[in-house]
């Protein structure tokens, strides 16, 4: 399950990659608004970043708390390169700026990664945390390079236009990002099929044993770290082009935490998991944060829920259900799924009402005692509202728990049936 394969047959692989390309090409034709334009561009950037992070987390078993160091420093170097082009001192096309970011990523990964990858496991995680803090502290010290509070801004319409492409309009930037996304995803997938990529999986599984089959685990980690740094840098460089401004926040702990969280949510055990994670990351940061002030809290709840009940992330949920579906057993449990969905939604409404009321009390008390929540008017000073939302939440939770237990029984029955089916086919 955790070998990084889409499908064993090449036909399937062609279909999937073509579909991926078509989605990238057609997305801006379907979602035409300004907002969706920037969202799509950011998704491409996030996908590359999360996939590069998963080279460490999912494929190498390296829990990094400082991946934003490499995306962020890639961004800074890229924006400086862009400004040098604008000043006429550098003559490379703007479309290669992300590669500049990528090489910056390699440079910093070679330098900082040497120390980081000396250790594995918990010490590795600690060192990444230390390096991240170090770089963030430096970003406040060296304002020439990091631009201080205001950051560094640039203008992507620089140098000579190539075939009339100036990168002024958002669409042109989107397609540049889409091309980079496609190529980077393809290369990172290819990486999982190479000797180094496979030995990296072995190092994740059992580093001690790898030492006894001729490989230096430290060097395997180091090389993987540099490769992850390269793609992180490309992602950072694309970010610099997209936003035309880079602030110290891009190397911050919050950004690093975001990569970890969403790579995990998407699913670190499958190659395509972080792609889902990257898409979710942008949706959460752009849309969810517009919807509610308490969005980080909801995100935290979701993360908690996933770690406890689906540690393989969304990708593993998909793959598990595909397996069930391929044996034609999905129809046995879809009613349970519906029930789980409805009850968890009810619980969420109750919890959401309370969370929103608390936020209202703390932040918007001057706007009066009432707030609108999903069409209902809640009064933060009234017992009824609190009692009502508590009741809704507890009812939802209770029903959810009952259904969950029922579901687990059904699920394990189905797994047993599938095992039997496999045995039967083997002997047949």
């Amino acid at each position, binding site marked *: 399950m955790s070998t990084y394969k889409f499908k064993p047959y090449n036909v399937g692989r062609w279909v999937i990659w073509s579909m991926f390309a078509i989605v990238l090409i057609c997305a801006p034709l379907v979602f035409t608004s300004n907002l969706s334009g920037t969202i799509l561009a950011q998704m491409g950037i996030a996908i590359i970043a999360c996939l590069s992070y998963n080279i460490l987390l999912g494929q190498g078993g390296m829990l990094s708390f400082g991946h934003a160091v490499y995306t962020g420093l890639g961004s800074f170097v890229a924006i400086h390169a862009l400004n040098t082009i604008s000043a006429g001192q550098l003559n490379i096309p703007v479309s290669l700026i992300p590669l500049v970011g990528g090489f910056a990523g390699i440079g910093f990964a070679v330098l900082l990664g040497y120390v980081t990858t000396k250790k594995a496991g918990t010490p590795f995680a600690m060192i990444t945390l230390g390096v991240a803090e170090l770089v963030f502290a430096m970003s406040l010290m060296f304002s020439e390079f990091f631009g201080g509070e205001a950051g560094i801004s640039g203008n992507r319409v620089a140098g000579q236009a190539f075939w009339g492409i100036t990168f002024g309009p958002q669409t042109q930037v989107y397609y540049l990002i889409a091309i980079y996304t496609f190529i980077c995803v393809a290369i990172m997938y290819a990486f999982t099929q190479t000797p180094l990529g496979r030995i990296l999986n072995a190092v994740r*599984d059992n580093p001690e044993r790898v030492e006894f089959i001729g490989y230096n685990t430290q060097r395997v980690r180091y090389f993987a770290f540099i490769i992850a740094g390269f793609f992180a840098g490309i992602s950072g460089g694309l970010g610099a082009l997209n936003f035309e401004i880079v602030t110290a926040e891009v190397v911050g702990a919050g950004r690093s935490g975001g990569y970890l969280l969403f790579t995990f949510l998407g699913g670190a055990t499958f190659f395509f998991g972080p792609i889902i994670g990257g898409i979710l990351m942008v949706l959460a940061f752009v849309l969810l944060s517009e919807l509610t002030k308490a969005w980080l809290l909801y995100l935290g709840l979701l993360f908690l829920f996933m770690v406890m009940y689906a540690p393989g992330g969304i990708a593993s949920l998909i793959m598990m259900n595909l397996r069930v579906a391929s044996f034609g057993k999905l129809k046995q449990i879809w009613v349970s799924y519906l029930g789980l969905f409805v009850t968890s939604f009810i619980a969420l409404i109750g919890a959401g009402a309370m969370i929103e009321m608390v936020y209202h009390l703390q932040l918007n008390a001057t706007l009066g005692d009432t707030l609108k929540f999903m069409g209902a008017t809640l009064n933060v000073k009234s017992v009824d509202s609190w009692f009502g939302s508590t009741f809704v939440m507890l009812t939802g939770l209770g029903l959810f728990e009952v259904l969950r237990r029922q579901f687990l029984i059904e699920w394990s029955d189905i797994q047993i049936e599938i095992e039997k089916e496999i045995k039967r086919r083997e002997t047949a």
Partner: protein
Amino acid sequence: MSYALELKDLRKNFGKTEIIRGANLAVNAGERVAIIGPNGAGKSTLFNLISGRFGPSSGEILLNGQNIEHKTPFEINRMGLSRSFQITNIFPKLSVFENLRCAVLWSLGYKYTFLKFLSGLKDANDLTEKYMEMIRLDKKRDLLAMNLTYAEQRALEIGITIAGGSNVILLDEPTSGMSKSETSRFINLIKEVTVGKTLLTVEHDMGVVFGLADKIAVVVYGEVIAFDTPEAVRSNVKVQEAYLGSHVADAQVGGH
């Protein structure tokens, strides 16, 4: 002519405790050696020293005439020595095929390359298939190692150990935890896959020892007190005193 493996006055301290106290051993190429001894005699420590897991406190280890006592495990492995573990030590989330392929990659010179596809490495894939048949796991090719039975995992452990093509093989209690019938089948397997290689194995089961070994080395309190053919070792007075004698002594204490 140099020995395949030679230990010269090898010593190892853990803190103030001396575990290996001047071990000497010289194994000719192609010999099958069983290392026996009471619990805590230092058999596994000896393997750990030879394979580079620990560095010795003093003394020399020579592999085909070259000093290896200060080398890392992967350097020693590249020089042609490979070992298995008493507690199964495989790659649980990789398939049987991938487990074995990882083990052949270095010996075929692929090193850390990321510019070649695994599927295109015909020599590595063919060799992997060959080893997979050898250890009778070709029917479990795509099963994750963690889903194998215990005996299959032990076979995979041996497979990973021999797949790198090393000439000196160290097996640490290869049959531990196996049933009688599994053990006898397994001994035949070990004999088969280590043809022409120098084999050192730690074993408790005397049936395995006499079935497998050309020579027996007896380790007691961190020293090799005897190293000879099975018959000679059986009649060795020192061995009887130190190793078998302890049982006699125990029985006498129990009798009074």
